[in-house]
């Protein structure tokens, strides 16, 4: 079941547009405030990564977002048009190393994503990079979303 699918131009700041659209799409699921905040932080970071690193902040290149519900799993797929190697690299930032000047102050994005969702999947191919954020809904009150009534959006619903 697709809850929404859209793209945003690759301009920094547009991750917030994506967060608003995803928040609207998952509203019927009745996620707790904390769980929704976690999901939206992960979405924002993934889209920002797609915009800044995958698409090099080129506005003409879309960053895609698709939200689907599969059983008890809510999946948000974020895509970019970037070529080459992975733009998502695992790291464990160390605050104290940063304060000591041994690491750059930045580099928190992936760390945040990994701790906000239940599962993170990354795929890179010749078409670009895809990041899947998975949230399992077992522990959340499910308000009985109706597929026919809530399937919205289209693949090329560009902002």
């Amino acid at each position, binding site marked *: 079941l697709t809850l929404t699918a859209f793209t945003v131009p690759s301009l920094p700041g547009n991750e917030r547009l994506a967060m608003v659209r995803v928040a609207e799409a998952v509203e019927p699921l009745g996620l707790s*405030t904390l769980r929704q905040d976690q999901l939206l932080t992960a979405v924002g970071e993934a889209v920002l990564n797609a915009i800044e690193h995958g698409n090099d902040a080129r506005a003409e290149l879309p960053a895609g977002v698709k939200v689907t519900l599969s059983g008890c799993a809510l999946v948000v797929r974020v895509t970019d048009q970037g070529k080459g190697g992975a733009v998502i690299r695992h790291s464990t*930032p160390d605050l104290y190393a940063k*304060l000591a000047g041994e690491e750059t102050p930045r580099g*928190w994005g992936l760390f945040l994503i990994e701790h906000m969702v239940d599962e993170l999947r990354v795929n890179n191919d010749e078409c670009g990079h895809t990041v899947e954020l998975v949230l399992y809904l077992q522990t959340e009150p499910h308000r009985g979303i109706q597929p026919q009534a809530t399937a919205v959006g289209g693949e090329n619903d560009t902002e």
Partner: protein
Amino acid sequence: MITRQATPGAAVIDIEGEVSSFAEDELMTAYTEATSEDARTVILNFTKTDYINSSGIGLLVTLLIRANRQERRLFAYGLTEHYRRIFELTRLNEAIRVFDDELDALAAAAS
């Protein structure tokens, strides 16, 4: 952002909107203003902050480095539960003391 000299030793920066790369110049300027009267403690008020992203966390780390070099303390209050957890996750809460409200922060700043 608004900077207030709350007590002789503590200044408050009211952060409205977002803490992201877009806020860098404004936050750094606010910090300079906050410390212009030699406040030993700078208190960040997040009550009206609706978005903090990874770049914003990097910005707070940069601010911490600056404060540490100047032997000043950074405090914070007004964080939502979500951002409090992010402070814990990143361990920012170990370097920036987090309080429930301004009164608590000012009381700690005075001690």
